[in-house]
């Protein structure tokens, strides 16, 4: 038995055991048992992934497990990377869940809601392990259904959960239909449904078939990955789901959309014409910019993180698109760097987004609100959580020495080092991509300074925030694990080099992108940085400066804030997150198109006097309103028109069925 088989077998049996235990264990122990089982599933999945990226693949066919197609599992390096990612996220979230769901026994701690968590993780592990179209679709749908049910855990508590659930259900099913059509087409055109067969025969596909498959699959996978303009479910679902589920969805499930694109476009179809990659890059750029701008003006902490997920997926797609273009132009070394950048960014995003969603969950649990305008002052009430969130923010803002910086650095290197003789498309596309990455990075920093600064620092802006208490140790332990992984990826990114090398060779787009132990060097490309030295230098020098200043200068004394000598300060005088983002909102006014109302009421005596001034501001999602608004109006008007067909008469329905049957028979005869 190979290590991958043993680990995956362990993961799936632990998931079954965990689900069963969730159903039968009393409320008091339920969270602990299920959390431990989820962590176990995650660890086993991560071990399977680790074995696969170290070069031991695994393949099995179980024809009797399901009727017609059977189940076929293939774990290679590409799948292994994503197994590792999902497993790592699940291990952390499992530990966190123990404290987060607690012992209440209802809401997210109810029997069903907890039992589904290990099943969801197992379904996610099944997706990259699938080795045939039917198994892949089965796993994809299992993942969609379990995540939907998990997301709805608090539907009795908040009505917004139901709306979010509807959006998610509709969009995930529409995406599934697109993927189903695409993969069915692919299997039919290739004359076989196992991935190996398809890979072998992909070269013989007609351009129409391969481009059609690419477009359908891209639509389906992009909607799962939260790519703008197919994103509207994401900020709703991530915001309304219980936080451990948000973390799993944002850090792991969304990455499987990326996995789908990588598997179909690079691996199975073996690359394609240039316009595929330009389309992918345009989607990535749109996602990155629109996502981060919406995140910058969001006041709901989890909505902010959700839009930032769209942004990061956009950056990942940008890397993949660059890789496709570069590989198409024959520049395999740089293409390898671009793939490595995209995949490393996927891992880094999984790390810091797990941490940040868990942090948002801790805040929600301690204060009962996600509204940044009501928070503040948590750094003194929840110091450990604040420090851990700070580590996540450092990564998410792509600042050195955080982990997000490393992958953005790699992405920029890939865009820089293309061969100048690579054609006009690259000459124009690469600088535009750099501009997108740069603008995204800049606004991203402002966004995360807002999240940390107005959410956790200064004085509490409401009693909810002032009554906050620190989270239980299991939650802190889960977040601590995530922070340790982030720090590890930030300081020793070169440890991922052999694994990424195998993945890029498996995708046939290049190889050996990274080298080195302490220094991160790129093979064949003149670029190197030393993340360890940057981290040690920044931290060491800061500590040294602080120590020298402390020993030679006088000690600090606490005093009331001066604030230009203006009277006693109240929390209402602080900048809120809305006011913090206001200048940025003004700068990007044309893109965000905020709706503002100012109502001034006057007393009866004179119109020159003012009694009250009311100010309202809404920031509607423009893409959603423009694109999905008309679509939904059209769908509901068609639905209204179709009501005439259903009058309630049984005879009529029987007549419909008979007509349909006859039509099918005629079609069959004359075919």
């Amino acid at each position, binding site marked *: 038995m190979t290590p991958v088989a043993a680990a995956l077998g362990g993961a799936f049996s632990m998931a079954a055991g965990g689900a069963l235990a969730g159903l039968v264990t009393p409320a008091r122990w339920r969270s602990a048992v299920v959390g431990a089982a989820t962590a176990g599933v995650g660890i086993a999945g991560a071990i399977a992934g680790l074995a696969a990226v170290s070069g031991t693949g695994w393949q099995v066919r179980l024809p009797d497990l399901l009727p017609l197609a059977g189940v076929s599992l293939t774990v290679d390096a590409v799948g292994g990377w994503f197994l590792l990612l999902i497993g790592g996220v699940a291990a952390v979230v499992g530990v966190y869940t123990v404290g987060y769901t607690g012992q209440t026994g209802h809401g997210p701690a109810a029997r069903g809601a907890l039992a589904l968590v290990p099943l969801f993780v197992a379904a996610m592990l099944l997706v990259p392990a699938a080795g045939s179209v039917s198994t892949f679709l089965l796993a994809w749908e299992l993942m969609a259904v379990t995540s939907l049910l998990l997301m709805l855990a608090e539907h009795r508590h908040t009505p917004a959960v139901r709306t979010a659930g509807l959006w998610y259900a509709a969009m995930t099913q529409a995406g599934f239909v697109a993927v189903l059509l695409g993969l069915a087409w692919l299997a039919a055109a290739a004359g076989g449904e196992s991935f190996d067969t398809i890979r072998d025969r992909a070269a013989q596909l007609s351009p129409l078939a391969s481009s059609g498959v690419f477009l359908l699959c891209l639509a389906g996978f992009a909607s799962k990955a939260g790519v703008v303009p197919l994103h509207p479910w994401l900020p709703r679902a991530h915001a309304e789901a219980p936080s451990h589920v948000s973390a799993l969805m944002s850090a792991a499930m969304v990455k499987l959309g990326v996995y789908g694109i990588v598997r179909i476009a690079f691996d199975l179809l073996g690359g394609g014409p240039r316009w595929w990659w330009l389309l992918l890059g345009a989607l990535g750029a749109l996602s990155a910019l629109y996502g981060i701008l919406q995140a910058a003006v969001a006041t709901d902490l989890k909505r902010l993180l959700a839009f930032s997920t769209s942004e990061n997926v956009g950056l990942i797609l940008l890397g993949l698109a660059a890789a496709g273009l570069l590989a198409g132009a024959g520049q395999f070394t740089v293409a390898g760097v671009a793939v490595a950048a995209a995949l490393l960014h996927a891992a880094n995003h999984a790390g810091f987004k797990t941490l940040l969603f868990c942090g948002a969950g801790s805040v929600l649990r301690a204060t009962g609100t996600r509204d940044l305008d009501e928070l503040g002052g948590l750094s003194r009430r929840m*110091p450990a959580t604040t420090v851990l969130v700070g580590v996540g923010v450092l990564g998410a803002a792509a600042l050195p020495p955080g982990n997000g910086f490393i992958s953005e650095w790699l992405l920029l290197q890939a865009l820089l080092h293309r061969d100048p003789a690579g054609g006009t498309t690259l000459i124009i596309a690469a600088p535009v991509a750099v501009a997108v990455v740069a603008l995204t990075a800049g606004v991203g920093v402002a966004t995360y300074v807002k999240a940390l*600064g107005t959410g956790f620092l200064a004085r509490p802006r409401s009693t909810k925030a002032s009554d906050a208490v620190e989270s239980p140790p299991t939650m802190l332990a889960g977040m601590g694990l995530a922070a340790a992984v982030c720090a590890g990826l930030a300081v020793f990114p070169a440890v991922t080099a052999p694994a990424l090398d195998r993945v890029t060779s498996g995708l046939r787009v290049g190889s050996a992108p990274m080298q080195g132990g302490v220094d991160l060097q790129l093979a064949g490309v003149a670029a190197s940085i030393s993340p360890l030295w940057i981290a040690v230098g920044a931290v060491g020098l800061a500590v040294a400066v602080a120590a020298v*200043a402390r020993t030679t200068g006088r000690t600090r004394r606490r005093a009331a804030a001066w604030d230009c000598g203006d009277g006693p300060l109240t929390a209402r005088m*602080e900048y809120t997150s809305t*006011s913090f983002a206001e200048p940025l909102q003004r700068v990007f006014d044309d893109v965000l198109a905020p709706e503002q109302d100012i109502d001034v009421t006057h007393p009866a005596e004179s119109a020159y006097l003012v009694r009250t001034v009311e100010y309202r501001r809404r920031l509607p999602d423009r893409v959603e309103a423009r694109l999905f608004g008309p679509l939904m109006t059209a769908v509901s008007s068609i639905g209204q028109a179709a009501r005439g067909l259903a009058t309630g008469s049984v005879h009529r329905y029987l007549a419909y069925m008979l007509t349909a049957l006859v039509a099918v028979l005629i079609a069959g005869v004359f075919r």
Partner: protein
Amino acid sequence: MVAPLPVAADGQGSRMSAGWAVAAAQAVLVAAVAPLLLGFTRAVRARLEGRGGGRIAQPWRDLRKQFRKEPLIPADAGVFFAAAPAVLTATSLMVAAAVPYLSTQNPLASSTDLIVVVGLLLLGTVALALAGLDTGTAFGGMGASREMTIAALVEPTLLLSVFALSTRVGSTNLSAIVAAGTTDQARVFSPASALAAAALAIATLAEAGRLPVDNPATHLELTMVHEAMTLEYSGRDLALVEWASAMRLTILLGLLATVFVPWGVATNLHPVAVALAAALFVAKLCVLSGLLAVAEVFTAKLRLFRVPELLAGSFVLGLLAVITSAVLA
């Protein structure tokens, strides 16, 4: 084309230690010169405005005085407020050591590059913005909000100019860029470089908080950005923040000088060459800060909401620079 990394792993201990000595010397030089440069700028400005002005060493005296005073910390502020001055100073010192101001044989060159330099400067900005928010005062939040809005637009410009500079050399490595400039002068005077220099100059003004983006000489609530964040600092904390801010101005002006006027930067570690490079470096800084002072006399501060227009302009310049250098390369 791919330029070789200038620092070869030749394993010669003495050479490495000489390199480290130069890197340390650079950091010390920038730290020492920065307040003097500030004093020089103020003196030139005062003279042009017909005032007497202070002495050139006045900023050093101010720092010494502030360092001896008792630092206060607002009642509601926490560790972010206390840590920010040290982080700001540390990032400034790191950048001062890593940029090849004196010699291209900088041992830090293989550990950092232009992107890291931009990132470290931004880390300092972020530390100060978080400190501003941590005070819990209206002014702190206001300064932080404005500073981050400006930084969000300046960072892309910086990265784009970095990219334009790197495209002509094929590397983001600073030593490679400067070394290529000293040997191949046709590359320095290309249209792409001119555009990149203009973009970088505007970004420098914004990043260092000079006119027309921010006025370092006023404390008027309508206009202040940097000063609003640092209002609550006092004593040694204020001294560190001011010192680091002065260093950032020196670093950015030095970067402009070294990248676009690279002559004089030593390509070896010979003491005489390094000393000459140091003298030339200070001379270039004086010229640039003199120009800065002259420009500030004739410029008024922009309205806050006009600043993004200026920065958007510099962003477009940066983008043009990148495209030009890609087309010409």
